[in-house]
């Protein structure tokens, strides 16, 4: 397993953002669904080793991120796209992706080809030498995806990756993460249920800091058909049915 979470909790003062989550994730694409404030971003930031858990045990890629040497090794093999991508406006696409390749401690002689490959994968070749300040929101999102995949990570974390992408690019991104999921663990936090249905082999649904459902998209759909979910699509009905059940239980 590339990710092993055991009773992970993260508190911010009195607020419990992540509440006793236990999760094992291997190779493949896991969609992380949930309403605003469910704890998805806090969970992703703990997996990205940015945020330490308040309690519980976390193992990433077989290593303990509390130990500095292990944390450094995890980060070398990690790709992360935050919800709000900060960038340097004066950098070109190539410079930005290369910068993070170097910060991930890729061997310098491998960097140029890795940067070119990552930029081509997100279809930004024609804009490779454009300044970031000149790019649209969707293009910047693709730059963020490129920096996340540049080191061919074994653990990939995407927070709202398709926000701002046009339909054609979303389809291309889903194909990309399906491809990446063949060899890596990919976690995609999203509000877009259709992304999960099209690209993820598994789904975890969070509510109030807890994982209230774990299964395949087909199992999520089945919950909608059996329960009292509302929504236009079968997956949406499954999503709302599980959330409704979780809220009534708490």
């Amino acid at each position: 397993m590339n990710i092993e979470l055991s009773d992970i909790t993260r508190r911010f003062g009195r607020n419990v953002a992540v509440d006793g989550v236990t999760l094992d994730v291997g190779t493949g694409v896991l969609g992380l669904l949930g309403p605003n404030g469910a704890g998805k971003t806090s969970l992703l930031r703990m997996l990205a080793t940015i945020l330490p858990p308040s309690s519980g045990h976390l193992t990433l890629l077989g290593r303990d991120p509390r130990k500095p040497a292990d944390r450094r090794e995890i980060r070398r093999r990690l790709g992360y796209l935050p919800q709000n991508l900060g960038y340097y406006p004066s950098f070109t696409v190539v410079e930005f992706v290369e910068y993070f390749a170097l910060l991930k401690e890729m061997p310098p002689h491998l960097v140029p080809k890795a940067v070119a490959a990552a930029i081509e994968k997100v279809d930004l070749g024609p804009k490779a030498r454009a300044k970031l300040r000149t790019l649209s929101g969707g293009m910047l999102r693709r730059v963020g995806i490129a920096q996340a995949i540049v080191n061919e990570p074994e653990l990939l974390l995407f927070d709202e990756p398709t926000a701002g992408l046009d339909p054609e690019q979303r389809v291309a991104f889903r194909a990309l993460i399906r491809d990446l999921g063949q060899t890596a663990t990919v976690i995609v936090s999203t509000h877009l249920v259709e992304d999960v249905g099209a690209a993820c082999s598994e789904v975890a649904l969070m509510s109030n800091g807890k994982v209230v459902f774990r299964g395949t998209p087909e199992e999520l759909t089945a919950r909608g058909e059996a329960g009292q979910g509302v929504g236009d699509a079968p997956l949406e009905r499954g999503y709302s049915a599980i959330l409704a059940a979780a809220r009534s239980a708490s």
Partner: protein
Amino acid sequence: MTTPDDVDLDRVWTNVAAEVWRRHPGRLERTAAKLLRSPGLARALLTTPSLLLPWLIASTLVLAVGALAQVGANQPLVGLLAPAVAAVGIAYAYGPGIDPAWELACSCAVSDRLVLLTRSVAVFAVNAMLGLAATAVTLGTRAETHTAQLTFGWLLPMTAVCALTLAIAVAFRSAVVGAGAGVAAWLIVVFARGTFSAAPGTPDTGAHLAAAITDPNLYLPYLAVAACCAAVVYYATRPQRGTQ
């Protein structure tokens, strides 16, 4: 024999693109990479706005003007200006809210605190060198006997002012607030200490202003301020709460 069907055009194109887009690091970056033993740290060091050319030119101009004014008026301006100039540089060095890519950098193998420290030390060193160069201009003036004292005397206050500026910049997530607070704090120290040390009825030669950088009684408070501010930076750069 290789036929066109055997050629992986995507691979060929990626290789071509890698060569065409390849960025050639400058001499400074190559040297920094060797010294720091990390190309990533060297690149991070040189992306700081503090080390960009406009900032460097502005710092040089400020200290050069200070040096010339010192020659003419025998005022200890270089020593007094250096900490304020460094404070501004440090404020723009690095930090959450200042560096837009802070969160991404935190997830990378090169330690974010190491990047912060390296950038701060670089700004500090550049300012110290500029200050030394500016002081050399003042040799031969009436202040010459104090030159060495002034040259090395500013290092401690500069450390304190820079640490204060960085702490405020990081805590308030604003380089402008940090720079303003650092410069203001330094001016308060200079004038307060100058007023305290000026003897009533003596002509104003400006020498009493130099008390902020020459008074040994201030060395310990400067170190204490620097230590406290370092603790604040450490606390302020701890992992922050997610947005969801």
